[in-house]
């Protein structure tokens, strides 16, 4: 460590060049922000930088990941047996529902053929781990351990075992950044499962609440209604659960009601999510295709 007194000599010219360097670097920063705000101008630079900061993300994630795997090693036998039992029971229930699903799918197919509409094909999925890295606390974002190398693209939908989680907003070679459906800047096109009423679910910044601001006071919506993704907009595949309505407040004198829904996925407890590739055959609006990175 150098003593503070050492630097008294180096003023004069050093100070002016300090100011000049500051102005120069500040201009570089402003230029970067301008270009970055225009979207996609700096995609290459961001991808490069994301590789540079990758070791830091891994370092931060390391204790959490190793804690997880260690807990796996030392789990007690009884616990495992109980969990196994529970999983078996769950599987039985799920299988039972699956039997009916097969029949329903065939029936659906037949009806679609009768109506002459496009069939909805299966989707390819990939499991991604969420890196335990805190981003800006006011924005609901997180990092995934999959990137361009796995074919992840901007605008790709993320699901978990219960329903829609979010979408990818940025892809680096090894990692990707995703946004939750509850981010204040995010919106999902949804439809009410009971009657097909279409609307938009907007994030609130709170990971347990979604807002449905575009429903009129007379709209047919009730507490407990399940909201599923409508597939409009081309980002989220249709038919996956998004949330459940928990509050409907009719506001006399206003044209829109206040409707609040709770996401069905456990957004703040997920550790793994599914990246979904919607099939090529499925009709997709041109905008969604444009954002795809090969």
């Amino acid at each position, binding site marked *: 460590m150098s003593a503070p007194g050492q630097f008294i000599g180096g003023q004069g010219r050093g100070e002016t060049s300090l100011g000049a360097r500051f102005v120069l670097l500040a201009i570089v920063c402003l230029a970067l922000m301008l270009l970055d705000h225009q979207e996609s101008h700096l995609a290459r630079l961001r991808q490069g930088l994301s590789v*540079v900061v990758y070791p830091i*993300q891994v370092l931060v994630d390391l204790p959490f990941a190793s804690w997880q795997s260690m807990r796996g090693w030392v789990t007690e036998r009884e616990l495992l047996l109980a969990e196994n039992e529970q999983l078996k029971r769950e599987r039985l229930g799920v299988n039972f529902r699956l039997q009916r699903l097969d029949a329903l799918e065939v029936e659906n197919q037949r009806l679609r053929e009768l109506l002459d509409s496009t069939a909805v094909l299966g989707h390819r999925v990939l499991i991604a781990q969420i890196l335990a890295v805190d981003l800006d606390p006011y924005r609901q974002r997180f990092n995934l351990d999959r990137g361009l190398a796995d074919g992840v693209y901007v605008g790709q939908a993320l699901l978990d075992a219960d329903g829609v989680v979010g979408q990818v907003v940025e892809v680096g070679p090894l990692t990707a950044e995703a946004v939750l459906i509850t981010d204040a800047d995010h919106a999902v096109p949804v439809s009410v499962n009971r009657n097909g009423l279409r609307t938009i679910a907007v994030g609130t910044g709170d990971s347990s609440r979604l807002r449905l601001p575009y429903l009129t006071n007379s709209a047919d919506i009730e507490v407990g209604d399940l909201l599923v993704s409508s597939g409009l907009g081309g980002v989220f595949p249709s038919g996956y659960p998004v949330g459940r309505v928990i509050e409907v407040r009719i506001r006399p004198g206003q044209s829109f009601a206040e409707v609040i829904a709770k996401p069905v996925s456990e957004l703040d407890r997920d550790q793994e999510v599914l990246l979904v590739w919607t099939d090529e055959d499925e009709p997709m609006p041109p905008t969604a295709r444009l954002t795809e990175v090969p």
Partner: protein
Amino acid sequence: MARSGHNWLTPALTLMAALVLSVLPLPQVIAPFRPDWVAVVLLYSSLIAPRRYGLLTAFWMGLALDMLSGALLGQHALALLLIVYLSQHFHLRIRVFPVSQLALTVVVLLALYEFVLFWVDGVVGRTVPLIERWAPVVSGTLLWALVLVFVERGRQAAAARM
């Protein structure tokens, strides 16, 4: 920034640790109070031992922070540049302040740092709660004072031993 050629490891590790701490997951209750670690480290060094880290370090650290936190590229870099520039420019005047006034200066500089971040967020149209925004200024100043006490004490002890 090892101009003298010796002991570049400590500053490098300190900066690395600051980056790690600024993205380490915290419980949601205390997450808003996370101090701006990188800003505090850079401020400490440019007030107490200036030119250990220069403007370029601030710039690169800012870019790393932007990438890690998913912010606009250049946002943290600009804020860090500003406070490092100010503290280096005025360090001769600031350094003779008693500790209480030093702390006040740090409050002002950290507030300026937050303000730049806040301002850029506003221009870009990102919404952020207004009051929680200023919590890191308080925690950052406390952290800075702690660092000052510990490092200075350690240094004096080392000097006394010689």
